[in-house]
């Protein structure tokens, strides 16, 4: 099995979501560790639509694999700008490219303070390797 990837420009939540912040726009997806643990993804459903306001900890999507279904939480508060409709029917994109084309939602940050609670790549890697 190839080694798992932990890009250093991202922030990570304990529940295995990653966040990429560019200005006040954040992109969110699930980590390489999460896609590897879930195995082949078969289904993605969004709990939010563009325009929705979410608080930190709100569920924004549900992903299902051959093994389990998991809720995906936004670790940060903001307004949903887009959900990745291109994943529908092409859920294996998340397995192949979890940090790129496999992104799930984009949101405009309303409160950047939640970011401080997230892990950097090194801390997240240590956390994953201890599980």
């Amino acid at each position: 099995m190839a080694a798992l990837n932990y890009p250093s420009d991202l922030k990570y939540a304990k529940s295995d979501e990653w966040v990429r912040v560019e200005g006040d726009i954040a992109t969110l997806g699930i980590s390489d560790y999460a896609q590897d643990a879930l195995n082949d993804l078969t289904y993605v459903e969004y709990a939010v639509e563009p325009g929705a306001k979410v608080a930190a900890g709100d569920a924004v999507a549900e992903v299902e694999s051959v093994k389990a279904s998991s809720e995906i939480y936004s670790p940060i508060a903001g307004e949903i700008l887009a959900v990745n409709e291109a994943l529908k029917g092409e859920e294996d994109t998340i397995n192949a490219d979890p940090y790129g084309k496999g992104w799930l939602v984009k949101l405009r940050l309303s409160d950047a303070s939640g970011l401080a609670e997230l892990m950097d790549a090194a801390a997240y890697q240590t956390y994953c390797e201890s599980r």
Partner: protein
Amino acid sequence: MTLRMTMPEQVATPEPLEPLIYELSVPGRVGVNLPVCDVPAAPLPADLLRDDLKLPEVSELQVVRHYLKLSQLNHAIDKGFYPLGSCTMKYNPKLNEDMARLPGFAALHPLHDTEGAQGALALMYELQRWLGEISGFEAVSLAPAAGAQGEFAGILMIRRYHLDRGDTQRTKILVPNSAHGTNPATVTMAGFEVVELPSDERGDVDMNALKQVCREQGSSIAGMMITVPSTLGLFEEHILDVIETVHNAGGLMYMDGANMNALMGIVKPGELGFDVMHYNLHKTFSTPHGGGGPGSGPVGVNAKLKPFLPGPVVDILEEASEPDESPLYGFVMPSKSIGRLKAFQGNFGMHVRAYAYIRIYGDSGIRDVSRHAVLNANYVRARLMDTYKIPYPRYCGHEFVIEARLDGAESIHALDISKRLMDYGIHPPTNYFPLIVPEALLIEPTETETKETLDEFIDVMKKIAVEARQTPELLHTAPHHAPVKRLDEVRAAKQLVLCCAPALPGAAD
């Protein structure tokens, strides 16, 4: 309605192992000759008649061979070892079947007047009493049709209990992250919100997290659903503390009784302080589990919840006037019942089987069932400890979980080991559950297996660990000796083929 989906052309459809019964059909062939009608024929209502209903036209022998062949493609407890964790696939004694086929039970119509069905009612009454005795509860309803319906009934009772007291703030149910998947589903179906609790490093409920949740959100907590032993196969070490903490917050305690096979005659959940639990007759009490169902999921409650039980329940309407007479039994609806869950009185055929099972074992025998189930699980666990990683290395209940990651065989997953087990004629353990253990295999041998069978399973598991390191490809492509080879699970999940009749060429969709 027939749903048809067309297969993509580039994928070849494998030859079926046995044709559909419709494909065996020859127009005009009959399997049964009906006698000449000796009463005037009554016309069927015109709106129920249809021409498009295709029925197979086959001989009796064709039918027998067809279904025998299909049954031989299956694995079953009567055919081989079935260590499917959390499901208690124990042997179902044939005596149960004999009892359920007694004409007085089998031919009894559910609408028969109760005066003429006193034997059946007496059986249900006794079964209610025995199940109550086994788990320390005041009252039992046999109505729920399966475990999930028992859960649903239990949570609805908790809901009704709070509302009945005018306590309308309680909208949350606590569920540990080691719970059965049905638990959060039940909570959601009953209109509550799930609050997930983490487990501590020993696999028990994280008491600090529980106490914090109860401190911060106590007045909104309706109760907690917990499985004991947990789905890790572990007896919850702080169970009394858990129960007290939730009770102090005003919540009620629901026990998922799926794992009762570890507790009978040893621990009574009602005496631990639980308010309600469900039983799975099709697990613990040896009624058929799986294709042979249906299930049965009675619920037991303490005095607090007794008025809310789903109905009808069997009660004594009139005590016997003479010592050698029987009382008069009848159906009653509890005073504040959550209502009916299904038509009639639950799955009565299962009540007969569970009754026969308890009756045959008696109280000391029932205790031995659990003691042997726990002994068998611990024997297998201890003998596999050197080969496989056991994430929670402590005495287990009736089942245990291994983490199927082998050093020197990094490409091997739990699924590969499971598929390889099929080549040795063994049903795979439960895969990837509980979710909190990566690459989980949940193994439940049950008490009905001999030591020789357990030893054979252990030897096979050790052999597979060697194969995993030496010839991993053998596992990746397993099973090799099963009726169907490795299935494409992704395609099965993404591309549904729901078809109960062969799609005829040119048939209109």
